[in-house]
């Protein structure tokens, strides 16, 4: 069967080529230029979907992106795309589509039983039942409801396509390429302004494509082609078909989605499926046209009942007839235009039913003035309508399609995205853009309520001129073609008054006039209550085809004028946007960038296992052949550091250079402990507080010169500490002579730790530096050279508690340095260690890290209370004095060791007294960090314990209900190795 309803001629389709496609497994043919909907209609297919709630049979209502009914699953496999509007899906050869939300088939849908029960399934019925017995909601009712929920199906496979994002800048963004938009783009483009002309359609021209208008007595298509040709020749104009401007954001930023490859079977290699453009505009002109609204009457939802404008668009643009015998139901002259066009295409006009008693007559077909459609017939597609004539009689009219025209709603959406409300225009019985537009945005043409073609052209050109004048760009109005300039004549008419049958407002969500009446009856009269109670306007068209009618009915019921009833909020996006597009390339492994340390390649060669530390990748441990468990590896690394020497890349720690004559004074205010008197060549541990008194970060400050410090931060806080320093420098003490710069990426830094550390360093650091304990003691620092002249910085600091140094070289030498250290130390047993061993070493030594300094701890809790100087003002000092910061009973950092060495200690276990009930009331603290200590020979932990400093030696319980353990642990001082610091000073 081939294209039975394709008209003999006409249309903007390429009849010379045939495209083959399938819908629900059946094969059909169409032409380039078709949408899926137009091609199906041309093949005599009206039934394309089912409604959400009642599973009513549905065909397309529209010919555009506002479509609520003809939603299909497009494509197969991982590219399956649910809820795709057949009315905008561009036909390509091999397209496959399936209907959705029906079982077992579109023609026979078991859940259509809901339609039979609809008298009970009214608006909000579910709020009134399904409550007994209580447990049945999760077990019975909700599973049943969810079984029926939803429209299309996700493929459940990773989206195989790529998406891009980009930025565009322009003087004037023109949204919509109908007559207004084309005139605007031409005006601004000729003036040399940077113009972006974006339109959601794949064919530019807007309604000009759907009408039989003439411009300067030639077909409108000729004029459109000429303008597009000129725009293409203008260097500052960018024309973007298939691009929907979806949101108007602050300061002239618009979000737009370009469908780059949706009209292709699959994207070409390297081609993104879609692009999210952030368009930075100096001015914008909304020329988005208008959407035709239906009239509500009994059973107005059958396949074959469309917007009248859509009916003629299918005929004029696509050469497709919805049926051979057609009726029109209208409240304005616009419906008559449909009848005229279809008649001209040779279709039979069964009747034009016009609610106006003074409806214009036609020589070509019957006009029933003052009449209304009161009913329809046809289970899976329209077969006829019932008309109540002006004299009160009824008449059956047989037809396969009915065009309905209730007037047009300007597409005001983008004008309201920043919270503005539209204004009611009684002359066209529609909301038009209000006075409070987003800054920089103006509106022209039908979007502004100007419905004639000549008016649209005029306003488009004028809008561009006004925008350019604003920007100081000289421009002249182009000569505009002669076009129809008919005044819009409309008699507001929203629904056919009737107690019988159901009249649909929101076709997808199955909200009828009765539902609105019920909402009113139950007090849900505010427009937002109406929406939320009935779900009206919450369908995929976001009320484009439904809201206006419902508002009008609510106005009738409440006796208020429509503008007082108001509108719901217009929210982005204008039409739904694929999530893949909004994510762009930031997904999977590319979700966030990776920062690699300078020794990464070397570590990878050693077979290191890496771990994510923020955005960094760090070597976690370095397994050796024969090691079967990570613990084996880590224990070996730890013992190597404790007995010989280990090397570890610590580049990720933040490094900040602080310079200036006031550098010392500055750091004295940043750290809670004193820094002013630190001697040149010395390093000091520093604790930084937030202004609220909690520990912010810790690290070291090394004084390389009177006016030069190098500060280290933790990896996690490197950025925040630097930002904080800049805040203090610029906002608090702007005249201090101090400059700060982050050098985290500039220096590779390697820890060399263990009793043989000095021996190893002596082989790398040039002999000009005396590394003896006297000359370079614990907490010394110096600028040195290594490997025969390479500048470096050496700090004798220790995280592990061993004799240890950190050696920094310019980042590009980090790889060479670690290789040099490994080569030089082979006979010393030099061992690379990773973050796991680092963690064990610092827990053994009792150094606080991120698990302890987590933003909820004070200096006192860390056992560092006396570091907070009271002699000076430093950030956080004042508020740190609030005693309650430490908890009701002050928490203190303690060490924890299991009484039975075989018992585990896990971080996150809570500390309770022996014999206390296992409840929150007995909770006295928690384990912050835990590890197996090869040095101690058991698991060990650090933790915060209420009154901990006075409880050394006490046995408490480390309780982990999640893991089902309850372990007796001894409270010990938090230094499991070398508590007196002899090793690190050796």
């Amino acid at each position, binding site marked *: 069967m081939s294209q039975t309803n394709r008209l003999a001629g006409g249309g903007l389709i390429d009849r010379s080529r045939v495209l083959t496609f399938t819908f629900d497994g059946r094969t059909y043919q169409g032409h380039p230029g078709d949408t899926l909907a137009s091609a199906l209609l041309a093949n005599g297919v009206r039934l394309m979907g089912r409604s959400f709630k009642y599973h009513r049979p549905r065909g397309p209502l529209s010919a555009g992106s506002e479509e609520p009914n003809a939603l299909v699953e497009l494509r197969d496999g991982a590219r399956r795309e649910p809820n795709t509007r057949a009315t905008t899906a561009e036909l390509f050869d091999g397209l496959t589509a399936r209907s959705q939300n029906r079982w077992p088939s579109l023609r026979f849908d078991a859940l259509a039983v809901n339609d039979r029960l609809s008298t009970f399934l009214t608006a909000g019925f579910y709020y009134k039942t399904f409550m007994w017995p209580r447990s049945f909601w999760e077990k019975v009712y909700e599973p049943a409801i969810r079984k029926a929920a939803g429209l299309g199906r996700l493929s459940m496979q990773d989206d195989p396509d790529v998406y891009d994002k980009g930025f565009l800048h322009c003087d004037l963004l023109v949204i919509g390429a109908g007559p207004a938009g084309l005139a605007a783009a031409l005006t601004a483009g000729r003036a040399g302004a940077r113009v972006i002309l974006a339109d959601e359609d794949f064919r530019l021209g807007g309604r000009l494509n759907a009408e039989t208008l003439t411009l300067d007595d030639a077909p409108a298509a000729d004029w459109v082609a000429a303008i597009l040709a000129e725009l293409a020749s203008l260097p500052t104009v960018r024309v973007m078909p298939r691009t929907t401007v979806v949101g108007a954001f602050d300061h002239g930023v618009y979000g737009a989605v370009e469908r780059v490859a949706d009209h292709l079977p699959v994207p070409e290699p390297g081609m993104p499926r879609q692009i999210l453009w952030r368009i930075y505009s100096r001015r914008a002109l909304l020329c988005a046209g208008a959407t035709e609204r239906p009239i509500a009457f009994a059973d107005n939802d059958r396949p074959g009942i469309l917007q009248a404008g859509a009916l003629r668009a299918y005929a004029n643009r696509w050469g497709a007839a919805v049926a051979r015998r057609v009726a029109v139901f209208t409240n304005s002259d616009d419906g008559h235009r449909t009848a005229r066009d279809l008649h001209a295409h040779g279709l039979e006009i069964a009747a034009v039913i016009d609610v106006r008693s003074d409806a214009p007559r036609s020589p070509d077909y019957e006009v029933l003035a003052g009449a209304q459609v009161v009913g329809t017939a046809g289970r899976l597609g329209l077969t006829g309508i019932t008309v109540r004539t002006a004299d009160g009689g009824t008449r059956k009219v047989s037809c396969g399609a009915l065009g309905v025209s209730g007037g047009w709603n300007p597409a005001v959406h983008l004008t309201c995205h920043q919270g503005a409300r539209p204004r009611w225009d009684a002359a066209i019985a529609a909301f038009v853009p209000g006075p409070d537009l987003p800054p920089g945005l103006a509106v022209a043409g039908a979007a502004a309520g100007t419905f004639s073609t000549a008016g649209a052209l005029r306003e488009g050109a004028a809008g561009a001129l006004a925008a350019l004048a604003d920007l100081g760009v000289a421009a002249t109005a182009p000569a505009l073609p002669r076009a129809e300039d008919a005044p819009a004549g409309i008699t507001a008419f929203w629904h056919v008054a009737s107690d019988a049958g159901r009249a649909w407002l929101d076709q997808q969500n199955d909200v009828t006039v009765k539902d609105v009446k019920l909402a009113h009856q139950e007090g849900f009269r505010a427009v937002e209550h109406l929406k939320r109670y009935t779900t009206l306007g919450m369908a995929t068209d976001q009320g484009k085809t439904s809201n206006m009618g419902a508002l009008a009915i609510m106005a009738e019921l409440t006796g208020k004028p429509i503008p007082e009833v108001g509108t719901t909020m217009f929210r982005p996006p204008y039409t739904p946007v694929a999530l893949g597009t909004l994510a762009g390339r930031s997904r999977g492994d590319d979700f966030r960038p990776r920062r690699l340390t300078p020794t990464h390649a070397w570590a990878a060669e050693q077979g290191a296992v890496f771990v994510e530390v923020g955005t960094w990748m760090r070597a976690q441990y370095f397994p050796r052949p024969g090691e079967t468990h990570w613990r084996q590896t880590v224990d070996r690394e730890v013992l190597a550091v404790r007995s010989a020497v280990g090397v570890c890349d610590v580049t990720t720690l933040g490094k900040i250079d602080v310079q200036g004559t006031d550098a010392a004074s500055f750091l004295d205010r940043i750290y809670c402990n004193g820094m002013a008197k630190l001697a040149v060549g010395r390093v000091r541990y520093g604790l930084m507080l937030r202004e609220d008194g909690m520990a912010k970060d810790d690290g070291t400050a090394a004084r390389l010169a009177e006016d030069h410090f190098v500060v280290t931060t933790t990896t996690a806080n490197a950025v925040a500490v630097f930002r904080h320093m800049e805040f203090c420098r610029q906002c608090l*003490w702007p005249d201090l002579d101090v400059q700060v710069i982050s050098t985290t990426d500039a220096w590779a830094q390697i820890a060399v730790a263990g009793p043989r550390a000095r021996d190893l360093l002596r082989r790398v650091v040039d002999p000009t530096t005396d590394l003896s304990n006297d000359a370079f003691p614990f907490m010394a620092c110096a600028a040195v050279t290594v490997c025969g002249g390479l500048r470096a910085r050496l700090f004798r600091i220790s995280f592990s508690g061993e004799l240890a140094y950190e050696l920094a070289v310019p980042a590009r030498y980090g790889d060479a340095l670690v290789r040099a250290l490994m080569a030089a130390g082979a006979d010393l047993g030099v061992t690379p260690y990773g973050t796991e061993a680092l963690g064990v070493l610092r827990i053994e030594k009792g150094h606080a890290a991120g698990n302890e300094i987590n933003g909820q701890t004070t200096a006192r809790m860390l056992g560092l209370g006396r570091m907070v100087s009271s002699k*000076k003002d430093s950030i956080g000092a004042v508020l740190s004095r609030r005693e309650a910061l430490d908890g009701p009973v002050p928490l203190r950092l303690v060490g924890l060791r299991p009484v039975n060495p075989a018992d585990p200690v896990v971080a996150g276990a809570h500390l309770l007294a022996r014999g206390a009930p296992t409840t929150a009331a007995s909770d006295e603290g928690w384990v912050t960090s835990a590890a197996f200590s090869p040095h101690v020979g058991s698991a060990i932990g650090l933790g915060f314990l209420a009154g901990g400093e006075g409880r050394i030696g006490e046995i408490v319980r480390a309780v982990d209900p999640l893991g089902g353990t309850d372990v007796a642990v001894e409270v010990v001082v938090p230094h499991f190795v070398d508590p007196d610091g002899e090793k690190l000073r050796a």
Partner: protein
Amino acid sequence: MIIPHPLLGPRDAQEFVYLGDARLIDRPDGLAEDAADAFHDYAYLRDNPAGEHQELWYHEQGDRSWLVVTRDTVTHRILRAELASDVARAQGRSR
């Protein structure tokens, strides 16, 4: 949003990090008698106006300037942006 940087011209707000009320410039004297009260108010209380709001933005992905931006919290319209160090000096802050 777009922030009119006084040195660099219009810059996307994405380049900035937001801190909050520009009164955070007015840090009290930590050695004063009433420091506890003053720091409570400084650290915790906010006018939080619906309308013009002077606020601190840090050009982290840029020149590292802290700015005082005057912005309407209802419309998001930005009235002006100044270097925070200039504002601080104008308020008498120095060393």
